[in-house]
């Protein structure tokens, strides 16, 4: 394979120029753009990481800020100016307690299975709750658990991180304290007596098909 001529013909542009190129790319996108995607669009030889550091600093204290979402980057308005944005605000349906708790359990325990969620909450998880979270693209399917039945697991998405302004799952509020205190451990019930939820839940699943319980 022959190389593109410009790969070798030209040096990478100066860092300031790289910075404004990234600025343009990120400004133009509503979704976070991954570092790789940025690099793909810049001339060869650019140092995306370095330019991003400069750019982030440049926007500190401004009306918009450069945020990291997983391995991607995006401009977002400064949260303290939210009050100006009445026009842009979109009314989201208020999530039910069941949906919020399920989301939190997935975020903090991911990858986690449905029966683990049910064990933590002590009630069955209605199919509609999971469906809603999938629809919002806040959760997605992870790898199957290598246990009998190979149950699917759920994990949170970049959309979730973006929505809650999180750089990564490690930035979930209080996650370190929870882990240190052992509350995120998967601790099975001794003798499995209380762990009877799975059985109960099967009938619950069948009855519980309406989504009403998700919204307050």
């Amino acid at each position, binding site marked *: 394979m022959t190389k593109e001529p410009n790969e070798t013909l030209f040096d990478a542009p100066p860092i300031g120029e790289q910075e404004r190129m990234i600025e343009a790319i990120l400004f133009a*996108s509503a979704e976070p753009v991954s570092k790789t995607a940025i690099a793909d669009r810049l001339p060869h030889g650019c140092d995306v990481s370095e330019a991003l550091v400069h750019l982030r600093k440049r926007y500190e204290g401004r009306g918009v800020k450069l945020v990291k979402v997983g391995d991607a980057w995006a401009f977002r308005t400064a949260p303290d100016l939210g009050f100006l944005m009445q026009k842009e605000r979109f009314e989201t349906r208020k999530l039910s*307690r069941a949906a919020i708790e399920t989301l939190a359990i997935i*975020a903090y325990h991911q990858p986690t299975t449905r029966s683990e969620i049910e064990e933590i909450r002590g*009630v069955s998880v209605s199919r509609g709750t999971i469906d809603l979270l999938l629809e919002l693209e806040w959760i997605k399917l992870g790898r199957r658990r290598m246990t009998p039945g190979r149950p699917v697991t759920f994990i949170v998405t970049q959309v979730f991180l973006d929505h809650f302004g999180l750089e990564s799952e490690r930035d979930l509020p209080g996650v370190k304290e929870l882990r240190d205190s052992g*509350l995120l451990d998967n601790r099975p019930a*001794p003798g499995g007596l209380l762990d009877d939820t799975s059985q109960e839940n099967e009938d619950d699943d069948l009855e519980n098909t309406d989504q009403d319980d998700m919204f307050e």
Partner: protein
Amino acid sequence: MSEPTPQEIAEFEQTTQERIASEALLVDVDGFEGPLDILLTLARTQKVDLRKISVLELAEQYLKFVEEAKKLRIELAADYLVMAAWLAFLKSRLLLPPDPSDEGPSAEELAAHLAFQLERLEAMRRSAAKLMARDQMGRDFFVRGIPEAVSQNRKVTYTATILDLMQAYAYIKTKDSFEPLHMRERERLVTLEQALERMRTLIGHAVEWGDLNQFLPDGWRDDPKFLRSATASTFAAALELVKEGKLEIRQSETFAPIQIKSKSSE
């Protein structure tokens, strides 16, 4: 009629409060998310750290709650009753001295796990609340309002090497001298006519049943391609001769050797 004593009033008020409290819990039972949720609510009334909770007291509170529900003829879902049965069992185990012959987890282990579950549920509730209290997209911060689409341009480059070029030219220049499919190659086929002619001269000798392939022309058995041609023609010729009444043909089973015999020999 005597006036109630202050003590009586106080007692009455206390029981009223308790009754209101317990009824409030019951009337609201629909709002609870299962027995664990009820237990967590009851546990909070102990006003201690969940790690220091008295599971025995909690079990009693829960059983009392179920009793009250029965009295008020409130039908509790099956899982509430399952929990009640389990807590009754746990309570008796906690009260009795441990039986050394008992297998499985001790009452203390079971109680500790219940406490862990309550603590974990509460922690998740708190985390969920913290999560929802964060700045949220579309509420507190906003995305770019006029995103610009990235247009896709497809650029095709073509490659060819000097070798491609030369080979192509070489091919053109030599194409004319290529020999088309040769009739000489066709000559290496046995036609039906040839086979028939050959068979006519041979069948006179076939007084006994003999395999058909004995009648193939010499020198045709080595090359499979020519063997196929000769076999087909010879077989067709044999059928033709059978039709003429000069030959008999037989085969014991599928794929068995085909045998022929001269008919005139009888």
